[in-house]
């Protein structure tokens, strides 16, 4: 997997969007369809969207260690 595989839309840098989706907005915990554990997984995934290829291993190791 590399950063080149990630689709980009016209006029919108994906990195800016993911930055916002990880860092801001309304977070609803608890009684949503996806349990908290699942939400954490998605954050790993969103960080992978961002992470440069050489850092992906590090991100995953850090997640597993938590």
């Amino acid at each position, binding site marked *: 997997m590399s950063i080149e595989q*990630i689709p980009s839309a016209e006029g919108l840098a994906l*990195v800016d*969007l*993911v930055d916002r989706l990880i860092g801001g907005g309304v977070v*609803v915990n*608890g009684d949503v*369809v996806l349990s908290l554990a699942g939400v954490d997984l998605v954050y790993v*995934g969103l960080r992978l*969207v961002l992470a440069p290829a050489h*850092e992906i291993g590090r991100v995953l190791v850090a997640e597993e260690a938590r």
Partner: protein
Amino acid sequence: MEVDSATVVHAYGVVVGGTSLPLPDTGIGGSGVALLDAGPVAAVFSRLPGTDYGEAAWREHAEDPSWLADVALEHQKVLGELIESTDVLPMRLPAMYRDEMQLHELLTHEASLFRAALDSVHDHVEWSVQLFLASEPEPVAEKPMSGREYILQKSDAARQRQDGRERRQRVVREAYASLVDVSRQSAANPPHDPALTGRSEVMLLNSAHLVSRRHERLFFDVIDETVERVSPHGITVEVRGPWPPYNFVELGVDPRETPT
């Protein structure tokens, strides 16, 4: 036993209730977009097939960057259209609910919190400003005549580079300060690693600004001034927006907790 229901409800964001607003034609996966009004606040949502976007699908794709990126872009597309005409609190992903009733319960339960957050960003949108170092001017050096001259030239060049760095830092700080002056709130976020952006230019500033819709002209006047002021230093300016106020709404709600 967990069974994925036939459909799930994806919420894009929360808006003020009791009003009609223009909704985007299509949402995630080409779905229709609708409004769920719970009185003081309402949610903009889509009903999506459970097999494609239910809990199992999210788990399956949780580490699949291209799937997540598609959903994120479609989520943002709806929010981007909404923010053109109305205040909206963006939902962080994943924002899936079992059905309209569950989403309605959340809106009712957190109505006062959502209303307060909507009031705090009323009539404002978020703009992002990024400054990049496009080119670093090379110090001019004459051909050295002797070893001593060579060493002197080397240290001169190093000093010039250091001076240039300090000058640029000052220019960036001043640019940010002048944008802060015409924003209701501002946030200087960590610049992106060049590896993330896939660009060779170094990002010097990555800021977000909460800007009044009525004073956007003023903000863009300052952007124009900034471009003029930074370009002699080899710095380029990129402005994106309007974004829903992601950087200025950081709201964690837990419907399981009873408000005190």
